[in-house]
């Protein structure tokens, strides 16, 4: 089987600021793929292009062998491309369960009219509960998501995204601001999800140690350019990467 995701020569600039210049890479099915780079390297911009929030000026993205050109974020989501955000982008006024149920809608086929259907709702609930249980969120199911502590809110977002049974999940700094223990928990959840539900993971992360420990392959960006693309062992040896990180420090 070919790559699940392929980015070909992506370019995007914001009023002269080059956020992406000629970024190309492939993600294989079942992989734990990491994107790292100093602040402002274009990592979030890359995820926005992949998930359809921005259209690239040049280049193309292929998902499951299909071109994503012109597809809206919701169309991409229905194809199995999940996404979480840097910072907290959950539905604060909804309960944890509702957040996850909304995500789970993606896993069930849509129906044409907005007729409330008990059976459908019930299946959503069962699946949402499974995900909640998995991420140890069950005790908080009826709590308003916006009122939970930060670490749990981050987990709610991961739960919402996982509930849609994505084939590929894009995570934007899921571990930022978490304690070491919370980081380890989250890493375990993600690895388990890959194992059990066959989710391919692409994550953006600042914690270099976690990235080198967990990932199968790494893409290093700096000022929108690819500095390194390969196995994690090579990252520390690469002179260009060392320079980019030292230059920033």
């Amino acid at each position: 089987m070919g790559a699940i995701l392929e980015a070909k020569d992506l370019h995007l600039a914001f009023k002269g600021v080059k956020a992406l210049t000629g970024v190309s890479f492939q993600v294989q099915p079942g992989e734990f793929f990491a994107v790292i780079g100093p602040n402002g390297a274009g990592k979030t911009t890359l995820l926005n292009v992949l998930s359809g929030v921005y259209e690239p000026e040049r280049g193309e993205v292929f998902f499951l062998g299909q071109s994503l050109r012109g597809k809206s974020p919701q169309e991409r989501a229905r194809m199995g491309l999940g996404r979480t955000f840097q910072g907290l982008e959950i539905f604060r006024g909804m309960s944890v369960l509702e957040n996850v149920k909304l995500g789970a809608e993606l896993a069930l086929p849509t129906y044409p009219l907005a007729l409330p259907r008990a059976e459908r709702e019930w299946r959503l609930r069962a699946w949402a509960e499974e995900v909640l249980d998995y991420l140890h969120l069950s005790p908080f199911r009826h709590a308003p998501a916006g009122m939970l502590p930060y670490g749990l809110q981050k987990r709610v977002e991961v739960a919402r995204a996982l509930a849609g049974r994505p084939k590929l999940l894009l995570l934007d700094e899921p571990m930022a601001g978490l304690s070491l223990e919370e980081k380890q928990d989250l890493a375990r959840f993600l690895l388990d999800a890959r194992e059990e539900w066959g989710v391919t993971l692409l994550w953006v992360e600042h914690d270099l140690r976690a990235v080198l420990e967990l990932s199968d392959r790494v893409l290093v960006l700096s000022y929108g350019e690819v500095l390194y693309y390969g196995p994690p062992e090579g990252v520390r040896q690469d002179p260009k990467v060392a320079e980019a990180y030292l230059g920033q420090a």
Partner: protein
Amino acid sequence: MFALSKRLTDAFSLRFARAVRETYREDEAYASTPLGRLALYAFLLLLLLLPLLLGPYPMYVATLVAIGALSALGLHLLVGGAGQISLGHAAFMGVGAYAASHLTGPLAPLGILLGAGSPPFWGFSSASPPSASRGCTWPSPPWPSSSWRTMSSRPGRRSRGNPGPDPSSPEVLGLVLDTPEKLWYLVLLFALPLFFYGKRLLMTRAGRAFRAVRDNDLSARVAGVDLTRTKLLAFALSAFYAGVAGGLLAGLYKAVTPEYFPLSVSIQYLAMVIVGGAGTVLGAVLGAFFVLLIPEVLNSFVGALGPEYAAQLAAWRNVVFGGLILLFLVLEPLGLVGLWGRVRDYFRTWPLPY
């Protein structure tokens, strides 16, 4: 021995899984506890028997509140649910009332439904084209006031030429709806199903999509919610509810004229939503109760003070509304529902708050 223990654990886990299922199912249904069900049935019975308990004037007020609550629920779907603002609510009620007043006689319920179907249509045809990222914007009010005037002047023209049926007493299956009781039942016939539908809707897919759009539209899109569709659905539903309420009002008022549906009525409904709060069905009912009963209470209050104050009543009413909206926005953003929730939680955990 091993087989036995395995059988036991299997049976246990099966049993356990069932139990969990059952509780989830119960958790999903509303009024799932025996007490809750009892309260629901008692309330429904009370609604059905209300004409026996109240005199004609309180009955008139009750009908007004029920219609108001129905219309407020429509606005709740939009404002509390999808987080959109509409100042065209009264206009949609007006369209509903006007359309319904044309089909009376045994066809009155049909007239109300058709009347209710037209506001969403009016809304769609005047909605601005959806922009790619933000969904669409709804016109508020949906048409310039001049065209509203020409449209609503049509009933007058009609009465000059051919009088048409009198909208004040519609007729259902040979029953002339000339008494407050009969009108009350007509209101219940429409309001109860629509209330249950609204409740169910808010608890399921569409309601979640509404609130997702309200809370975070970027996240909603990435989670697969179609912004344009969701907003249009919320607007159409809200206009439909307004249309039904307008059609029912046409039966309550003696005539349908645009004076019954000015902009200030739209603001009154916004007040209901804000005072009621939280985008729930209960909020709509409480808000309508509160806002519609204030004038009545003020009336009797001012009447007791003396007739010279009565002239100032209208002005005072607006002051009271404005003050109320401010008070609720500042002190209790969740509205009466939030207040009620806190009182309930207090008693639920009483006397052991922790």
